[in-house]
């Protein structure tokens, strides 16, 4: 009873009187966060204002949202195609997370040459996309390396000059040749922090490799994995690929994000702001839904 009364009391400041004296310090240290909040609010309020104002007259309008709904209703419209491409990149992003997890597991189990693999699998993420893609295009492009090696790949140039097939080549690049990214290192780091005693006691109890992976390692790194999964799932409308580096900004193919980027480069602001605002609003319940599910599934393991 006494204990519960104590826990119900408002907690004292950690520094007590000293903390009151430290008010200036707290305020000083909070300046960056307050600036960040100010910038975030300022930019996004402005973004909303731009979305609802007419580009030529400056008057309040819903015209851009009407244009958006009209475009969304046509399967041959740029926005509709961009949305489909966005989903494709989103799928690749989620798939890469699972691939990263499996690859991290085998490297954690110290497969032969694991240090070399760790470096090589991360290497493309270290290198600027302009480097990777220039070389990649030279390999698959007109009279490229694959053509010379196989004498077969005459079709590759056509693949890269058609918007529908270019997107497939970019997705393939993104999945296989863009590198596994920081997620892979975060998962590998989480596995490396698992106390060896836990796995040793599992082995002594006759735990198979599959059970060790599924029932020991996965729950122990779930906290990290589920967070990365939530972050990956939040990109449902913002996922994009290195399209600029493939096309040099020459138009199709688009994702939603790249379409907005391309329009801003062309100094068109209002319609992209409206499109962005619409998909952000649609995305919010999805983001919080995913977060809620991740919280429910989390086994709360501490080690």
């Amino acid at each position, binding site marked *: 009873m006494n204990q519960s009364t104590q826990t119900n009391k408002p907690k004292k400041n950690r520094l007590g009187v000293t903390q009151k004296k430290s008010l200036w310090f707290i305020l000083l240290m909070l300046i960056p*966060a307050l600036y960040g909040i100010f910038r975030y609010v300022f930019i996004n309020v402005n973004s909303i204002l731009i979305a609802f104002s007419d580009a030529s007259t400056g008057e309040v309008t819903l015209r851009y949202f009407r244009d958006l709904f009209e475009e969304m209703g046509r399967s041959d419209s740029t926005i509709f195609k961009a949305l489909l491409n966005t989903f494709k990149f989103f799928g690749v992003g989620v798939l890469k997370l699972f691939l990263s997890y499996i690859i991290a597991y085998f490297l954690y189990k110290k497969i032969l040459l694991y240090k070399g693999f760790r470096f090589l*699998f*991360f290497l493309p993420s270290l290198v*600027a996309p302009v*480097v990777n893609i220039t070389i990649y295009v030279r390999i698959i492009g007109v009279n490229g390396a694959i053509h010379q090696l196989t004498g077969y790949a005459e079709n590759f140039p056509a693949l890269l000059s058609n918007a529908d097939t270019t997107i497939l080549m970019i997705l393939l690049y993104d999945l296989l040749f863009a590198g596994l990214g920081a997620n892979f290192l975060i998962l590998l780091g989480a596995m490396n922090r698992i106390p060896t005693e836990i796995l040793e006691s599992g082995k002594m109890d006759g735990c198979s490799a599959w059970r060790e992976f599924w029932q020991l390692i996965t729950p122990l790194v779930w906290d990290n994995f589920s967070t990365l999964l939530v972050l990956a799932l939040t990109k449902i409308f913002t996922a994009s690929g290195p399209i600029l580096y493939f096309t040099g900004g020459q138009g199709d193919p688009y994702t939603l994000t790249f379409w907005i980027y391309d329009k801003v480069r062309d100094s068109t*602001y209002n319609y*992209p702001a409206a499109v962005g605002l619409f998909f952000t609003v649609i995305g919010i319940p999805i983001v919080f839904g995913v977060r809620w599910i991740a919280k429910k599934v989390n086994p709360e393991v501490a080690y």
Partner: protein
Amino acid sequence: MGAAVKTLMRKCAKRIRSTSPTRVIVFVLFLVYALALIMPYLFGIMFSMKTAKEWFTTKVLDLPASLNFTNYAEAWKNLNANDTSVPSMLFNSLWYAAGMSFFSVILSSMSAYVVAKYRFPGRSIIYAFALVAMMIPIMGSLPAQLRYVKAVNALNSPVFALVMCQTIGMIFVVMLSAFRGVSWEYAEAAFIDGAGPLLVFFKIMLPQVTSVAVAMFLTNFVALWADAETPLIFLDELPTLSLGLLLYKGRVDANYAGTSMPVLYAGLIICMIPTVILFSIFQKSLMDIQMGGGLKG
């Protein structure tokens, strides 16, 4: 030499024989994938050593007649984009990537520290805001960002690295999580010894989370070094190396006079070097990032 290789091969063969079939299959898959990843870079180095004449007269995989490094010197001196040479682009990349990463990590750490360790009204609001900023990617804010950057005179200016650095978002959440894991007793001991709060932060608490801070700095640095899209909008008059190479590539593809494909490849290889070296040195630190807890609050 031959004996050493034989011994290594024998060891590998012995290890492969004593491992499970799954591991052997996975090893072979990894090996094939690793070769597929490394080959393009070897091709890139080879392309950079071809002469302009060889580029047009030989097939793409034909080796250059000699080890020719002149394209690197040529790239260093004459490769340029928007009247900016490679050394200047390297400098721009450095302040953009290192400066922005440094400001993001140190400024986020300052705020994350007080939110993690001090009690004051509104701290949970700041934390919630950081989560929202991290989880809800606001689309379509690019026009407003451009207006903001113009309004604060940061367009085509190194001030951009400070004005647009990340002070509330993922770095804040990760650093807050790291500070929560550090015992307050260290600070209390320092306060008893007469240290002020700023000294405690910089000398006692920040060093406790150095590995996480370094990891966050490096991941940001690598991403910003590689990024050409943001500089194309905000810093096109001060091109970074990635942006400069993208612009130069466009000119090479359009057969502009004075441009050369082997020189472009030499520039691309130069661009790779800093991040690869950084990763080789700090790859253990990069694995210190922990993503758990913070997001799900």
